């Protein structure tokens, strides 16, 4: 595996390999000495063109636990004010010798551009590009689901499990990555969103079942996992995607009543950061079957696995 850019082309056995490796990594994190020498001498650059302390720290922890050196680069910019050039920044980092570049960018396709342009020679790991993909998030979500809902997780997929993804699917790279990955692993995925927050092209994806309200979805299926997506308030009245936060919560929010309709084994997930009271109530966020905090820890293990698989073997650059 040279790069990790998207879950759309990720084969089932490669996905399972990442999950199994993550399990081994997680096991090492139970020890007193959590650090491993595996990537000693390798340099990992966190190239973040979008603010995200949480994801950056997660990748930093993952790299450091494998004894890699970490360089953090925060660049300014957005789709409105272009800011620093991706190309020039990448060339500078390459000159500093990066074995892997973990990139988060506001433009969809930025990670793929970086990987195919020849500006950097190392591996590229997509930490979120625009509204396109966020593969390690989907992998840690899949890992979390597998850990809780599959009897013997090692070597296994998510066959037969039912997962609901609720919220702004149109703008969510988390939904983008999960839609492909969970299906590849054998789960049945339902997306729940108002029509304004669903991409026009979703009808071409027969593997995704679409519901326009959360109650309809809960009527139709017993979900093993329900993933609530963060809703951006700016998208509400400003861009007219939805009338008001209150109406959103009424129709799509996971409150105590809806939570009670979930089967016993169901887990509640959220990629964070949460809008408590908007898309997810406090009771749901703090419920015993909420795995939201655990997702964060799993994120480090999954990212350790990704870095290991990209950098440790001979297929690593050069």
């Amino acid at each position, binding site marked *: 595996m040279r790069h990790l850019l998207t879950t*759309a082309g990720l084969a089932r056995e490669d996905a399972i390999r990442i999950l199994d490796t993550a399990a081994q990594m997680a096991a090492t994190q139970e020890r007193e000495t959590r650090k491993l020498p595996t990537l000693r001498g390798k340099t990992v650059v966190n190239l973040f063109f979008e603010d995200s302390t949480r994801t950056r720290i997660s990748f930093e922890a993952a790299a450091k636990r494998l004894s890699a050196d970490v360089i953090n680069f925060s660049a300014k910019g957005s*789709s409105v004010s*272009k800011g620093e*050039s*991706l*190309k020039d920044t990448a060339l500078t980092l390459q000159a500093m010798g990066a074995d892997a570049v973990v990139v988060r*960018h*506001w*433009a*969809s*396709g*930025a990670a*793929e*551009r970086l990987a*195919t*342009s020849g500006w950097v020679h190392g591996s590229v790991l997509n930490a979120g*590009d*625009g*509204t*396109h*993909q966020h593969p390690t998030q989907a992998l840690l979500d899949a890992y979390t689901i597998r850990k809780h809902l599959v009897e013997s997780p090692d070597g296994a997929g998510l066959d037969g499990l039912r997962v609901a993804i609720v919220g702004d699917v149109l703008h969510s*790279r988390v939904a*983008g990555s999960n839609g492909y990955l969970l299906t590849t692993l054998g789960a049945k995925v339902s997306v729940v969103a108002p029509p304004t927050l669903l*991409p*026009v*092209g*979703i009808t*071409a994806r027969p593997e995704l079942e679409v519901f326009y309200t959360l109650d309809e979805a809960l009527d139709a299926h017993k979900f093993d996992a329900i993933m609530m997506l963060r809703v951006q308030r700016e998208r509400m009245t400003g861009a007219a995607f939805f009338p008001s936060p209150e109406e959103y919560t009424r129709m799509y929010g996971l409150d105590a009543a809806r939570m009670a309709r979930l089967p016993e084994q169901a887990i509640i997930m959220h990629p964070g950061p949460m809008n408590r009271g908007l898309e997810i109530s406090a009771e749901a966020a703090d419920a015993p079957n909420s795995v939201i905090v655990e997702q964060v820890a799993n994120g480090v293990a999954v990212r350790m696995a990704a870095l290991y698989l990209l950098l440790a073997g001979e297929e690593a650059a050069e």
Partner: protein
Amino acid sequence: MSSTAKPVLIENVSLAGQVNSNLLIVDGEIAEAQGSPIDAPADAIRIDATGLIALPGLVDLHTHLREPGREDAETIESGSRSAARGGFTAIHAMANTTPVADSAGVVEQVWSRGREVGLVDVYPVGAVTVGLGGTQLSEMGAMAMSRARVRVFSDDGKCVSDPVIMRRALEYVKTFGGVIAQHSQDPRLTEGAQMHEGIVSAELGLTGWPAVAEESIIARDVLLTEHVGSRLHVCHVSTAGSVDIIRWAKARGINVTAEVMPHHLLLTDESVRGYDARFKVNPPLRTQADVDAVRAGLADGTIDIIATDHAPHPDEDKDCEWGAAAMGMIGLETALGIVQKAMVDTGLMNWSQVALRMSHLPAVIGGVADAHGLNLDKGEAANITLVDPSAPWLVDPAKTASRSNNSPFGGIELPGRAVATFLRGTPTYLDERFEGLFA
């Protein structure tokens, strides 16, 4: 290319693919045009045009020359050179320069620089609104009466979206027989749009540019045109729905003309996979169904002409992430080859129709039919393009005469190209096979 005083004899050329002929050019005019051999003066330069096709000099109704303001991307000179290489003898320079061409001063500047360069007749297009702001009509009358004699007005790059402003503009140009060339794009429906809205855009996570944003403006504009009894030209038609609306409008007798770009005859939104910004263009590449519909529309005349929308951009505006890239492709030198590949070699058009849609009709719409797009008859100005339809070539964006290299066609083989271009008898472009003839 220096002008030559010697007569030029073009022998055994096929006139628009229809009939074999010989042409004698003397003092910028076609002195003789006949099927039988011509008794030419002894000092005439003889061109053996066996296997070549002669078209009236091509006319582009939609070019971006970037001067004044963005000479790093293109100048009137480099753009003219690129046009001549593409077989064009006349181009219409769009108004979205810096400063915008919304006054007599700027259009005269562009016009006289074009004349100074002398490789192609540059006809400046005037902006419809001041600064392309969409709120106040520009002094179209002054531009029409200037030395540049502007007849085509367009805010291309932007849409004249305010319906009242569009109505007034359509009414106003009747004063001097002008035409409004509309860039049909509802701005509200396309805020932040990056590519065609469809299955591919959903997968790639790029904000979509729905077809309805083009079609709804065209529908409104043809109805306004009918209501006020004016003339409308629709720029770069790209969707099947747009073709349907224009067909309906023409059937109703509405005075509307339309153009299509070569890239919309060939490429689809699938090309956007990989996020190579050389495929980023406005209006965007659409689906195969749209490509099929615009080809059919061009073949049956619903779409009147082909125009290039030659849009140069410097490397840094393309060699970057998609969201940060500029929209547009250069196209003067690849237009003819693409039209041959997509339309002639597929049997949808013949060369006579190419002459119609790439020379005659563009000249008529632009109001320059007294000088361009004329039949290659005795007595007419010698604006002639010689085309070799059997000269396959590999497109190399670095080898263009344009200052910019933003072509998505690099590596594609095109079946033919212009090999000689004559502007009033003076060769403005000669393929290397003719080297030495005009020493």
